[in-house]
């Protein structure tokens, strides 16, 4: 990929990232952090790519470790965020 395209993607993503969270109440700081945390779990994609590229046991072992850690980050992150936000759902059914 050429450097200019990458730089453009990077700069635009920075602005989008700034823009989407610029106004958020402190109530949502923790879920938002947790959700963003889960999103960077997509490093799993990178971990799978390097596992495919691996040419020896050292490379494969390290990339499998990366896959385990990234999966924990991504899946655990989304699940725990959902649990936090479950608490905010409107209560129609009264008492649980």
């Amino acid at each position, binding site marked *: 990929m050429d450097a200019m395209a990458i730089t453009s993607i990077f700069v635009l993503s920075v602005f989008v990232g700034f823009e989407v969270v610029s106004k958020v109440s402190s109530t949502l700081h923790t879920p938002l952090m947790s959700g*963003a945390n889960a999103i*960077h779990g997509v490093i799993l994609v990178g971990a799978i790519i390097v596992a495919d590229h691996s040419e020896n046991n050292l490379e494969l072992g390290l990339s499998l470790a990366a896959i385990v850690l990234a999966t924990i980050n991504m*899946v655990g992150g989304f699940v725990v965020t959902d*649990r936090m936000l479950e608490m905010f759902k409107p209560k129609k059914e009264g008492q649980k």
Partner: protein
Amino acid sequence: MSSTWYSLIGLASGVAFILALKGLSHPKTARRGNLIGAAGATVATLSVFLYVTPGKDGAEAHSLPIHNLGWILGAIALGLIVGVPAARKVEMTQMPQLVALFNGVGGGAAALVAIVEYLNLGDTATTAEVIFTVFTVVVGCVSFSGSIITFMKLQELMTTRPVVFPGGRFVIAGTLVAVLGVSVWVVVALGTTPLLVLAVLSLLFGILFVLPVGGADVPIVISLLNAFTGLTVAASGYVLSSTLLIIAGTLVGASGTILTRLMAEAMGRSLFGTLFGAFTAKPQAASGTAEERPVRSGSPDDVAILLNYARRVVIVPGFGLAVAQAQHTVRELADLMISKGIDVAYGIHPVAGRMPGHMNVLLAEANVPYDQLAEMDEVNPTFGQTDVAIVIGANDVVNPAAQTTPGCPIYGMPILEVNHAGNIIFLKRSMRPGFAGIENELLYDPKTMLLFGDAKASLTKVVSALKAL
């Protein structure tokens, strides 16, 4: 799958992440936002199995399936077995440290990915690729070891106070210089050994960087390390030519930076002071004064009488309430007081609990109506007309030292000004200082009454005493 389709799916996932962050910024759309993010991540993960990413130049392009497929699926299964139950079973009180841990393993994963790709590329790596690899390894390792330390602080496996040792700042500065020096060495000389030295030094720097951070600042550091991990993901996206990783990582890096600043503002902390506290912190004398001073402690009946004749009561819940799982009993007490015609509100400090918004989650779990939850700015002007403020398992967030004692670790943090209320009741387990480790003068105030014991047990007694009146 053609590379065009693969790229389009990556783009769609990137858009899903933008929508996820957007959704997470508003209470109504937050849950949906999180699910959109999860869907984007799932689709992105599935797509890598259907497209072979070109490796280093000269390596023969192979056809599907991708290599090591069985191993990869096994590793994912292992990650699921560890991650899902941890996220499902964690007590809401311990959720902040779990988020810290998830962030740390993400940083570790990014560092490992960079190391493997570096080993794999060998001599064929371009200078730009090496620079991005070095960045990922350094920041990923700092995020990993730093997050482990924040986890240990929050889990109270180690002291929550700032850990500062004589000459500490020189050690930290020295480590940083070493990290930068070895980084240059890797870029110039190339080779596996310098890269591993770099990883070890970066892990060390992460530990030293977080150790001097006091308990109250830990959430800010977690948020910052979260942004760091985002940037490492973006950098590995460059090395792996993955637009998706660049978009996702940069989004998290940028939004995480803004979020860190917002959190620091909500807590009245200077971001600069938190970040570079490591370089400026001086060893402090332990502030826990051992002298015995008189306090006024009361019985549940005394508390009930005080409440019975109050017109307005503000409940200030803190982490102690969460630990005692007393949120349901608090609600019972509040309902009882409301039935007696007493005006009741909850005063929620932005960082009550262990993180901004943590207390709102716990009270929502106990079905406390939103309209009784007052934020700090709303409730502070009303303490003058409040007859009784009940502080349950909170300490630092009502400590007037934050306004009166320059130089104390929480100085400048906005507090709930319960000292303006007519009477103050503290439900505390003991005289032990709060998470920030600072003595609270308010405990010795003549208008303060202390009710010692487990928050839930004490509240239950107060409820039955109040019913009997």
